[in-house]
């Protein structure tokens, strides 16, 4: 319907054009000021809407764009007691210093290590959970599972840190159980040992977000047409066959978009989580880029240096986002933009 209607409108207007030859585009100065006046009148008629929208733009300029402009201190040697304009330019010195720092490789290794394991284990698990949950027949049971598995998402990392500290303490339940089963001879202080840190971070993250991350997949599954399943049933497909051949392909688009976002987030550690669980004893495994920026910047007062490290991270993250977007677009025509 739509294209046809457009064609007929075009045909009518071209007919009119050939008979009368009025050209609304070209006009004298009066026509121009007439357009200007009409535009002003339109703006005035939507003045309330404009004020509403511009309040948001003003907020974004202050809280998003001024900090972006503030990035210039990465190329200066900024001191907190003088204004930014007085700080001397130092070019790329801050970046060179970061890349020459001994700590940098440890920081990059921790950040990428934790993120990649989270991606490999933590990304597919909610999809699997959503697929299996979808196979639960009883509506009431399903609802209960959902309510229960959403619960940890609503706990803050501080609370979860408190729970973990209680569980992992040398008199905690983990040590009690392992001692009783004779797996260990002496209690282990897990949070004080770097070698357990990644496991703690990844396990607790999955525990907290498994149910919540599955919501978006469940929503996508619920919009799959039931006719597909009915047709497959008539063709004699079993439950697992339908799961792999109908449900999973139907939510491919959702999976792709979340995967692009996950890829672009590999340099982001879960700052809230790590800040709670890190301490001076597990530092060699827990010092990630975000923590490093926070410490060098706000604790040591090296503002320019920390800004440079943060900027480097943002640029690489943006590159990863665009790269992942490009590749998935080539591969299966689903993409973020």
């Amino acid at each position, binding site marked *: 319907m739509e294209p046809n209607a457009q064609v007929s409108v075009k045909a009518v207007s071209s007919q009119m054009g050939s008979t009368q030859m009025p050209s609304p585009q070209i006009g004298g100065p009066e026509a121009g000021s007439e357009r200007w006046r009409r535009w002003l009148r339109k703006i005035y008629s939507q003045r309330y809407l404009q004020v509403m*929208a511009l309040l948001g733009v003003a907020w974004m300029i202050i809280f998003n764009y001024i900090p972006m402009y503030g990035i210039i201190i990465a190329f200066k040697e900024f001191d907190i007691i003088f204004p930014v304009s007085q700080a001397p330019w130092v070019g790329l010195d801050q970046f060179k210093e970061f890349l020459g720092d001994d700590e940098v490789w440890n920081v990059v290794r921790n950040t990428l290590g934790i993120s990649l394991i989270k991606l490999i284990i933590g990304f597919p698990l909610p999809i699997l959970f959503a697929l299996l949950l979808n196979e639960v027949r009883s509506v009431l049971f399903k609802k209960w599972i959902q309510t229960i598995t959403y619960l940890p998402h609503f706990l803050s990392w*501080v609370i979860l840190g408190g729970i973990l500290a209680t569980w992992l303490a040398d008199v905690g*339940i983990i040590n009690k159980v392992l001692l009783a089963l004779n797996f260990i001879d002496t209690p282990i202080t897990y949070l004080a040992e770097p070698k357990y840190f990644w496991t703690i971070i990844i396990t607790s993250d999955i525990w907290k977000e498994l149910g919540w991350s599955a919501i978006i997949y469940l929503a996508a599954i619920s919009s799959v047409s039931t006719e597909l399943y009915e047709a497959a049933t008539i063709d004699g497909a079993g439950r*697992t066959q339908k799961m792999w051949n109908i449900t999973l392909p139907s939510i491919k688009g959702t999976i792709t978009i979340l995967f692009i976002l996950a890829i672009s987030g590999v340099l982001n550690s879960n700052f809230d989580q790590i800040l709670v669980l890190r301490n001076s004893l597990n530092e060699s495994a827990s010092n990630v880029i975000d923590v490093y920026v*926070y410490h060098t910047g*706000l604790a040591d007062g090296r503002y320019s240096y920390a800004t440079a490290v943060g900027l480097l991270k*943002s640029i690489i993250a943006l590159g990863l986002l665009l790269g992942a977007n490009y590749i998935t677009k080539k591969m299966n025509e689903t993409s973020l933009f």
Partner: protein
Amino acid sequence: MLKILSFKRQTPAEAAFGIFNGLLMLIICFLTLYPIWYVLVNSFNDGQDAMRGGIYWWPRELSLENFRAVFRSEGIMTAMGITVAKTLLGTAVHVFFTAMIAYAVSRRELIGRNLYMIIGTITMFFGGGLIPYYLLIRDLGLLDSFLVYIIPAMFSFFNLIIFLSFFREIPAGLEEAAKIDGANDLTIFIRVVIPVSMPVIATIALFHGVYQWNDYFTGMIYINNTDLQPIQTFLYRVVAQSSSNQMLAAMPSGVTINVTSQSLKLATMVVTTAPIVIVYPFLQKYFVKGFMIGSIKG
């Protein structure tokens, strides 16, 4: 009918899969709930007795002393007051402000609409980072001010998009009728749009309310005055920096010796978490719907 038939036609392998799946779900539910249950029963146990350990399923010496100590502690109650205030005020301001802007850009005739959307979209993918942001907060005079919890958190472009997709579904006829009656756009937003948008408002209010309630970072880096710190920042200092001194300092005088800093910590955690845990199941149907809008729009 078809569903019932197909259920009856289950093969043994499929029935086995169903049972295995159900068991797996029960195990996941248990693993989710038990760590929380463990904290709960220990917080309801006598503090001195709990130090012996071994309380797994039920309090051994049931006691409300820990909770009495929490509610009598001035430091904890002040922090709790800050948390309640920032959550209520912050959520109300965030929902109203973000929804108002979303409504304005949801109207197709708005001049400059595409530009405004581009300005917002950029903020989702690039930002200034922690240090420039900290310097901005300092320059705005928001350090050590209650407003640091409200103003920098009053808008989110991500939430704007969720509002936007909801507002687009509102039938235009509703607004037209109000317009004929001579109402301006702000009045239409408040009197017509807000009342019909309760599902999406509940969703965003829950998301932002949980953020406000759980956020400890703002209180940790922008606030030095302990009278202005929320309960999560207070707990962060107790949990992460293991400063039991702070916990003990917050203890009111005259508390029975049976309350230990550990049992007081657990009770504070329970009190801090209870309001959210009680509220979210009632809002579940709204936020699941909110996610559906999001997933359909891609």
